[in-house]
């Protein structure tokens, strides 16, 4: 579904990705893990068009993504829930969801989707007329995910959904992610919470300084001594 070959990109003259190969198949849930500054967010931003790729190829369902604007890429079916949630804090919860459906014309179905996510995250229903800036971190994360889903994507990018959340909330968010995947949605999960990420995904890529250094089945990586040492703090 998503095929990335020797992708390179960066910020101005500073290179951040040095030839990334990555693939996601229909219905898969895949983790991309690595330390701070390894290039995880840069990778997502490059695929979703926020940063221009300087080399390599990206294709989604056979369509090339190179040089496409972000608004075109999201319309192809890739929704990117950015790091730090980035909800529109001055707008209401409801407006945030409506904006997530920007460009969709099926008003009735939009309404139904909205109700579906209000059911999935009841706290959002309660706060639908509040400004998103007044929500707690966990609530904003739920809103950001629901907003990303309003586009009815085929592939969802989640950038550090557990960041800054309490352990209870983290478990809840991860449970939601697994359930979303069970409905057939393909997911690429970027996480620093390596253990939890490996537990809910099928495959994983480990990125270090802009290069993929390991890849494989998540359960194998979870058992690998090297991964345990570098990322799980175990000796």
């Amino acid at each position, binding site marked *: 579904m998503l095929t990335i070959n020797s992708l390179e990109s960066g910020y*101005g003259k500073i290179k951040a990705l040095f030839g990334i190969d990555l693939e996601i198949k229909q219905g898969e849930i895949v983790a991309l893990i690595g330390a701070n500054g390894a290039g995880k967010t840069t990778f997502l931003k490059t695929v*979703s*068009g*926020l940063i221009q790729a300087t080399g390599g190829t990206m294709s989604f369902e056979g369509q090339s993504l190179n040089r496409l*604007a*972000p*608004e075109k890429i*999201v*319309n192809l079916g890739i*929704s*990117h829930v*950015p790091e730090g949630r*980035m909800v*529109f*804090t*001055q*707008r209401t919860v409801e*407006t945030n969801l*409506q*904006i*997530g459906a*920007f*460009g969709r014309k099926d008003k009735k179905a939009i309404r139904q989707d909205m109700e579906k996510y209000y059911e999935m995250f009841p706290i959002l229903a309660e706060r639908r007329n509040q400004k998103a800036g007044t929500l707690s971190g966990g609530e904003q994360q739920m809103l950001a995910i629901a*907003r990303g889903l309003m*586009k009815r994507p085929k592939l969802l990018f989640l950038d550090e959904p557990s960041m800054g959340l309490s352990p209870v909330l983290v478990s809840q968010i991860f449970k939601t992610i697994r359930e979303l995947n069970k409905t057939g949605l393909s997911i690429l999960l970027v996480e620093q919470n390596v253990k939890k990420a490996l537990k809910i995904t099928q495959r994983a890529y480990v990125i270090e300084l802009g290069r993929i250094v390991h890849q494989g089945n998540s359960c194998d990586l979870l058992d690998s001594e090297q991964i345990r040492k570098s990322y799980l703090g175990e000796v």
Partner: protein
Amino acid sequence: MFFDVLLIGIMVGAIYTLVTIGYSMVYSILKLMNFAHGDVYIFGTFICYTLLEKYQLNPVLAILVSAVLGGILASFVEIVAYRRLRAGQHRMISMITALGAAYVIQNSNELKWGNQVMAFPSILSAKTFQVFGLTIPMTQIIILAIAVGLIILFTLFLKYHPYGKAILCVSEDIPTASLMGIPINKTITMVYFIGGMLGVAGGILYSTSYNAVSLAMGFRGTIIAFTAAVIGGIGSLGGALVGGMLLGICENFIGVYVSSSYRDPITFLLLIVILLVKPTGIMGAAEQTKV
């Protein structure tokens, strides 16, 4: 007397609000001082003058045509002089191209229409009517109604239309807005178009109420929009309204009760005082910066 001055002040304030909206919206999205704003609106006003004087066009049609042409010129300036500088360049650069665009339009206006004050035809009824013993001129009521109507229309557009909401989201966070599928370039061009149109509407209403149009009103328009936006709180619609009204009303009271030559000095002294007390403007909130 007091009531007359107040009424004219409110009318001028509503016109100033129209002129300020476009300026303030552009600032809230791009943090760009659009120096060309006043010259665009006076261009539209001149077009309207020509259509009325030379071609005796129906006033409603003349206003519509000139507002649309003003909107097109504003978007043209955006596409030509600002768009390429949006990504990664220092804001100072686009401020200079804005200044350049302002001079190009101003001088083109001068070549076509000269720099003299010309009599702008009064297109509204000159009748008056009596309420509670006060004589109220019909013209001012109509102008006020049109200006307020346009402000309400634009507010509703921002609140309920998908593209209105898109404009608000783009002004909050451009990258995230693009992840929502909002076409950024198209949205920004639209802001310029609407801002130019509202500015021209304001210019025409102003010119018809004072029966005058001149090149100098363009530059003054930029200054007014800038001042009203900053006093009210730049970037917000409420701010444009409060700033525009305050400026219009103050100007008129100072002009009548003090002296019209003190109108501008006192008004701008007010700007300094307000900003010293509340640097974000009356309606403005402190800008949040990411850490």
